[in-house]
């Protein structure tokens, strides 16, 4: 696992005077002069080419910090993965630095807010009721610095749509600065129960937008229980209908756990009958993060014990010619008839394998585990001996 931010950053006085600023990282000393003010130069050979907005130096050379009238930040070892095209935010007053975008990663996600109107039993990013409108400003600063050839970025939360107009502004900024980049938004969809809001999103005509919306049961009260919000099911379903009515693509996301498994086959039938127009359905293994630990007994079911339901639901969706994927699930547990739906879904900086995986013939095709799975994973993980 790789740190996406760091504390213990030493900033010199010039850097501290900049305050919070966003820079694109480069190690190229031949960058055109006009670009340099928006870029942070990675000092590797003691060379300080003129004009960069900021200079990042490795730990251990404190003397360099104040030797020059340049903005210099001394970064720890674990940030040496920073590379050309990455985007960082310096926070001198907190002596920290955030990595907002990694060009080499296919999974760049922006958290838009920590606020949420759901309170899901298994939330991996527990919401906080804080005023965090500054985050949107930070992302609006970062978007113009991102490589326009980036294939995909994500918006997550909290519930991103709670930003209201600012959410729409952010989607517009993605279209404007990154017209060739897919935008995937994780939203509970409830805000789109307001058809006007859904229409306004569609009117941005983002060229490659997908809203990922969770539906956890075909029965309203079970969904509402899982997301801990009465009335959420109706709003989410209306949100999905509105989004699709206005031509916005929608992915339905189902997290697999003790509360969602019993109705999973019925939910799949419900989706094929009512929401067949959804563009993708993702059936996702549980992540052992955030609230999941607190609600462990109510959520944990060994994945080996729900494979029949998972296969039934997957095949129901597939027969209806829906686009279906299985995320965060291990091939050795799955019936081979659903292997073709399993995706390597876990972000590179989270993906891990267990000792039981040693010698597995299909490890290269397997999603593996979230690092957090060390807390608990299936008792039935075993190497697959013959490849698919």
């Amino acid at each position, binding site marked *: 696992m790789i740190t996406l931010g760091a504390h213990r950053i030493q900033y010199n006085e010039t850097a501290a005077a900049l305050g919070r600023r966003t820079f694109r990282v480069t190690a190229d000393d031949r960058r055109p002069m006009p670009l340099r003010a928006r870029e942070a130069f990675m000092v590797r050979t003691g060379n300080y080419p003129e004009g960069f907005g900021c200079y990042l130096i490795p730990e251990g050379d404190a003397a360099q910090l104040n030797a020059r009238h340049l903005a210099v930040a001394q970064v720890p070892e674990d940030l040496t993965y920073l590379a050309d095209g990455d985007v960082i935010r310096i926070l001198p007053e907190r002596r920290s630095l955030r990595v907002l975008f990694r060009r080499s990663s296919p999974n760049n996600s922006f958290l838009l807010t920590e606020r949420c109107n759901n309170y899901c039993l298994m939330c991996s990013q527990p919401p906080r009721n804080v005023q965090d409108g500054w985050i949107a400003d930070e992302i609006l600063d970062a978007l113009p610095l991102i490589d326009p050839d980036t294939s995909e970025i994500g918006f997550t939360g909290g519930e991103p749509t709670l930003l209201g107009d600012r959410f729409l502004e952010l989607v517009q900024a993605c279209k404007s600065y990154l017209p060739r980049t897919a935008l995937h938004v994780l939203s509970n969809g409830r805000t789109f129960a307001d058809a006007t809001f859904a229409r306004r999103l569609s009117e941005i005509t983002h060229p490659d937008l997908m809203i990922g919306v969770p539906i956890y049961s075909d029965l309203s009260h079970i969904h509402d229980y899982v997301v*801990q919000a009465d009335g959420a099911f109706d709003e989410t379903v209306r949100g999905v209908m509105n989004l699709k009515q206005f031509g916005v693509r929608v992915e339905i996301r189902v997290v697999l756990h003790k509360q969602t498994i019993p109705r999973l086959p019925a939910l799949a039938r*419900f989706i094929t009958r*009512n929401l067949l127009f959804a563009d993708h359905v993702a059936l996702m293994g549980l992540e052992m993060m955030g609230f999941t630990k607190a609600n462990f007994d109510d959520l944990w079911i060994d994945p080996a014990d729900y494979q029949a339901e998972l296969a039934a639901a997957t095949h*129901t969706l597939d027969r*209806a010619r829906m686009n279906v994927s299985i995320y965060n699930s291990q091939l050795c547990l799955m019936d081979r008839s659903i292997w073709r739906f399993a995706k390597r879904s876990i972000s590179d900086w989270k993906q891990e394998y267990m000792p039981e995986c040693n010698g597995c013939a299909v490890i290269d095709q397997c999603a593996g585990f979230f690092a957090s799975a060390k807390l608990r994973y299936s008792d039935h993980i075993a190497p697959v001996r013959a490849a698919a």
Partner: protein
Amino acid sequence: MSGFTSLLEYEKPLHAGYELLPFRFTQLSGDRYVVTNLAGEFTVLERPELEAFAKTQLSASDPVYSELKSKHFLTDGDSNVAIDLLALKVRTKLAPLANFTGLHIFVTTLRCEHSCPYCQVSRANDDRREFDMTEETASKAVDLVFRSPSPAIKIEFQGGESLLNQDIIEFTVEEVTRRNQQEKRDLAFVIATNLAVLDDRAITFARKHNILMSTSLDGPADLHNRNRPRPGGNSYEKAIQGIHRVRRELGRDRVGALMTTTVASLGRVREIIDEYVRQDFDGIFLRPLSPYGFAIKTKFYQSYDQSRWLEFYFEGLDYIIDLNLAGFPFLEHYAATILRKMLTPFQPGYVDLISPAGIGIGAIVYNYDGDVYASDESRMLAEMGDKTFCLGNVHTHSYDELLLSDNLLEPLEASFAGSAPMCSWCAFEPYCGSDPVFHHATQKDFVGKKPLSAFCSRNMSIFRGLVERMERPGVREMFERWAYMR
């Protein structure tokens, strides 16, 4: 951690009772009932379950309650989005109506070199050109084709033997294609032919315009040749040669086949299906004989009764199910059409099984002489002397006059199954159709008395038969695959 609310709290609104959404039920067998809703979703209930449900006495903890809620047979205090979803599903089922006429049938000639005793349209000798469509007539018909608002237009050429008037096929296809440069419709062309007269010219033309060939194949050689006499007694050989020639030169999917059931077919459904398997078709349409044309004159229609045909159908269907369960995918097209209504949100456009009826607004026929008919069966009826469903003539009537003619509107309105006696309360109505031409032909009434209707009894048996078969392991899954195949 505190701050989480238990499931029990979220279940509380369920205990305040529920309201029924519109539903209908029909006995399946014994104490078992099929229950359907407006969107065609269904379940099978035991009579006590049905009674408890209808009396709003079902407990929220009953699995039947969950199923009925999930399928939108009831709403409770916890959720009201069911109404929106149900409305959306009903709209989806009815949406194709707005497209209006998509299938346009051109009868290029009544001439035919076959002399099939069951033929449903009168035929004429091979060399009498007075039964051919002229360019003037075709041109007027093409004007009418493009008056249809349908974004998808399928032109089907029928006969007689349609290819005996190849000139008019070529004229029509070229004229339609030329005008479509402005119209931008999604075009498809079909030539219905026995393939016996298929020549290089037809193949070359079909390749250029991506035309589909639709032919007849009644079963093995002896059965087919007995059903379909022609000079030389080689109808089967000609058809098979033609099928493989079209596949080879135009593409595997460029030929389809239809079978007609006769008395001679009745004991031989497996052989007929085997013939389709042998010829590499991906399915078969097990069709009943219709009460029109020569079929009536020659007593063919009366020669076997409904129950014998149903035996034939179900023996065939079960044989096909077994083929599938053994791993060989093969389709029965009539069942697939009904299953699409039962198991998906879609409404298939099959004109004989739709309500409002498909006459005129789903398909329309331009006869060789310019007469316009509301359906293929309508012109067959006219060949027997009954022009009830003749809407006018391309030379003397405008589009508005034809499509607003009483000969069309009256049967459409009268036969609408949603308000027809016995249909309106039938659980199978969402899967069924209203066939005013059939009921007029058999009962001299657009609606007909359903207990006397072979259309009704045949389809009711098939609906029940399909529901019952879905209880066999693996069959529901297979049926879902059929339902979504298009």
